[in-house]
Structure formats: C-alpha cells, structure tokens
C-alpha cells in the first residue's frame, strides 16, 4: 500500500469532491429552489448528502483495500501462500489485510472530513464523531468483503458483478441522495441491508443533529457490528481452509 500513497490521496479527496460539487452544489440548487429544505429534514441539500459521501469514502476505501489484496494474495500473485510458509497463520494474514484497510480508511475519511469542514459543510464541534462512525461502517463493510472475497475462485465474473450490480445499487438506493423513505417500500429493503445506509444514518445524526430514535441508533450500530463480526469470522475460516489445501 505504501507504493500507492499518491493515488490513494487523490482518490480519497478527488472522487467524493466531484460528487460534492456536482450533486451537492449543482443538484442542491435545484432541490432548494423547488422544495427548500423540507425534503432534507431542514438542512441544506449539501449538508444532507455530506455524511453520506463521507460514509461512501470509507466503504469504497475499505472495499478497495480488501477485495484487491485478497484476490492478489490468493489468486493473482499468490503471495499469501508465501506468507503462510512462515509461522504466520491464515487468520493473522486476514487481520493484517484488515488493519491495512483500516489505515487507508482512516486516512481517507479524515482527509475528506477536514475538507468538509473547510468548505463549511460540517463544523468541527458538531461532527467530531462523524469520521469515527464512517470508519466503523468502513470496517464493517471491509470485514464483510474480505470474508466474501476469500471464497471467490472466478475473479473476473465476481468483480464485474460486484462493481455493476452490487456497489452501484447500494450507492443509489441507500438514502445517499434522498431519504430512503422517498423510495417505494419494495425498494427500501436494499437500504436496510446496505452498510452504506446504516453508516449514513449514523453519520447524519453525528454531524448535524439529524433526528433519529434511540432504537434506530441502536439498530444501525448493531447491524454494522454484526457485519463486522460475521465478516471477520468468515474470513478467518476461509483463509485457513484456502491456505491449508
């Protein structure tokens, strides 16, 4: 990962910045002109989507740093087999990948958060827990992806499906650009299972005082925790079995 510092920084700031400017400002004007702030719980549109973009930065960063290293380690360059020829075990390799992913997520999230404060979209006092929450969502999604990818044999098929049919709908149907409740009820379950929605909802609560019940706070937190724990458990089992052929 040390070799990719430059590109990680660019991606961390660049990609969500494009969304922030294009959608937050561009579409934000449309939204505000037509419905004021009534559709976004009383805050400007850009304030409404900023926590979602922060969560998205965390989740995509976590995905990059779990999916690709795990594919490389097991399939493309098979480096995990070299590591496993030493006293290092499968679960230790998984833990190493996970910690490296968290470092990248922390870096990207904090950088983007500072940006949001600089743009006046968030304030330090109100939102200091927002990056932590985003990181927690990233950790949960990263763990889950690591567990899934550890079992993938046909990588080209998997990566296409992941990118086009999983990540894009998650991004669009997780209450990122509009409240999830705007969607017809049959589409809302996509959000319910999406780590992005749970992270975004928590992020809104911890950045501008978005109204949310104590029960839902707990639900969001528990869903992410369940993903984190399940992901790590699955990864540990799969890493061990795949290395010990």
């Amino acid at each position, binding site marked *: 990962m040390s*070799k990719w510092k430059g590109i990680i920084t660019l991606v961390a700031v660049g990609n969500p910045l494009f969304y922030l400017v294009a959608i937050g400002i561009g579409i934000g004007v449309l939204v505000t002109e037509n419905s004021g702030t009534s559709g976004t719980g009383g805050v400007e549109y850009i304030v409404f989507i900023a926590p979602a973009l922060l969560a998205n930065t965390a989740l995509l960063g976590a995905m990059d740093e779990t999916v690709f290293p795990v594919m490389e380690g097991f399939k493309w*360059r*098979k*480096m995990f*087999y*070299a*590591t*496993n*020829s*030493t*006293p*290092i*075990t499968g679960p230790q390799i998984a833990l190493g990948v996970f910690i490296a992913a968290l470092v990248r997520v922390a870096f990207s999230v904090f950088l983007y958060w500072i940006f949001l404060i600089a743009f006046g979209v968030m304030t330090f006092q109100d939102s200091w827990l927002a990056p932590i929450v985003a990181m927690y969502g990233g950790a949960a999604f990263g763990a889950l992806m690591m567990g899934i990818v550890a079992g993938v044999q046909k990588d080209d098929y998997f990566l296409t499906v992941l990118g086009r049919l999983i990540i894009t709908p998650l991004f669009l149907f997780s209450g990122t650009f509009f409240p999830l409740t705007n969607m017809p009820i049959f589409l809302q379950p996509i959000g319910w299972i999406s780590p992005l929605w749970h992270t975004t909802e928590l992020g809104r609560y911890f950045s501008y005082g978005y109204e949310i019940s104590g029960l839902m706070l707990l639900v969001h937190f528990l869903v992410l925790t369940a993903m984190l724990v399940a992901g790590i458990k699955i990864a540990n089992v799969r890493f061990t079995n795949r*290395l*010990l*052929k």
Partner: protein
Amino acid sequence: MSESLITARGLTKKYGDFTAVDGIDFDVAKGESFGLLGPNGAGKSTTMRIIAATSRRTAGTISILGRDPEEHGPQVRAHLGVVPQQDNLDTELTVAENLYIYGRYFGLSKKFVKGRVDELLAFAQLEEKKDVKVEALSGGMKRRLTIARALVSEPDILMLDEPTTGLDPQARHILWDRLFRLKEDGVTLIITTHFMDEAEQLCDRLVVMDKGKIMAEGSPAELIKKYATREVLEVRFGSDKNREVAPILHKLCDRIEELPDRILMYVEDGEALLEEIVAKKLHPNTSLVRRSSLEDVFLRLTGRSLIE
C-alpha cells in the same frame, strides 16, 4: 541412520475421489539430501505441502522435528525454508525488501534480519540487484531470490519443489552450485524433481514416486544398480523397422525396452553387444552406448518414461 528429522507412516492425501498420496512411508535424517523423484502428478508436491504444514493429510502419521504439522503448524513452519514450484515473490517490492519482510514474518529481530539480508544477497549473487524491483529480474534470478528468501530464518530443513524447472542450462548450474554449498554446510534438503540429472547431482537418497505410491527407495547409485544395468545400448532402426527387429534383439539381451523412436538394451558391456548386433547383419541407423541413469530406473519401475 542418524537422528531422523521427518518420519511419515501410511501418509495419505485424497482430494475427493482422487488419491494424490497413497499410504507412503519415509524417513529423512538430519543433514541428508532427500529427493522425491517422479513424473508430474506423482504426488510429490502434495507430499511436500504436507511436510511444509500447509496441507492437511487424509490419513497416516507424520512427525517433523518431533511435532505433528497439523497441530503445530506455526511451530513446524518456523524451522522450515520453503521454495515453492512457482515463485511467489512480491513483485512490487525490491529484492532486499522481499528478504527483509519475509524474515520479519518469522518474528526475527530487525537487526538480525538486516544482517541476514546482506549475507543472502551475496549467496544468491544478487548484491547488485538489491534495490531493483523483483518484476525486473530474470527467471534464474527470481529462483535464486526465492531460495535466498527460504534461507532467511536459517531453517533446519530446506524444501525445494522442482527448483530448476523452467530455467536455462546455465541458470540451472548456478543454482545447483548454490544448493551444493548448502548441502556441504549441513542443511537438510528435501527436493522434488522430474529431472534425473538433478536427482543424481543433488540427492544422497531418494524415493521414486508414481501415482501417489513409492516405487523404490535408495541412493541414486543403489537404484541404478538394482533396477538397471551398468550400461545401456540405444539403437534406432527407423520407426517401422524397430518392431520387426525387436524379437531378434531380445535373443541377444535379457532386458530390452521398446520406445516409440528407439530400442533400449540393458547390458554390462554395450560395445560388445553392438558388435554382436552388427555381426547378425542388423545395421541400426544410429547407436549410442551410455551409462544407466535414473531415467532407466523409472522406466523399469513403471514401464513409462518420466517426461511424457
């Protein structure tokens, strides 16, 4: 036999219905250079992976340095240096970084590993390539680096799976020289190969494997003595005529092998036999007298050539 480092009894590995290793027994003594010889798919690499504590056996027992590799994987692996069939170096890192990081996986101190890296760069003749990324190295250099990497923890046992497959003759000879030095230093070597010359050069003792079973065991010289004759006469009469003359040749020699392109005749004195053949007015297109090799042993044991 001196102290046994590895003891395997009835070792078996199945993948579904396929039996890769079929109840084999062997011992490897300290300081010995032990070879597993056989064609592709004979079960050599699977056996190596079980010894390396990176594969679970289906049945049988195995003890490596007194430990069961399935129960004590990390502890067993701490004493092994593993050179896999395909190099799995980190191609994005430099030569020195590959050695350093691998050494740190063994929990060795930074200071020790740094010293070891310099020694191993010299051993692998890669000092000038120290800061070069691995992807820029030649095949022979990558192989030497993989071997150097396996030595970083000063292992008790060095395991080499097909160490010279895919290398050109010059690179092979450099590698053999390096391995010979390790052997002289008393490192226990376990080598799989399907190259006869490699087994003869490097192995004190070997087992011949085929279809997951051990067909024979001994030193290269013992095996040749037991399963072949001193010399081999190879004659070619042309592909159609080989079959015609074979019955006549059989009367002159107890053991002959008909291969698609030539006939092998196992005798003590090849020149004398050739004279007899010529005296019978049989004139082979080409003829060659050579010493018997492990290739002949394998042919005898399995009825097949090693490289098909």
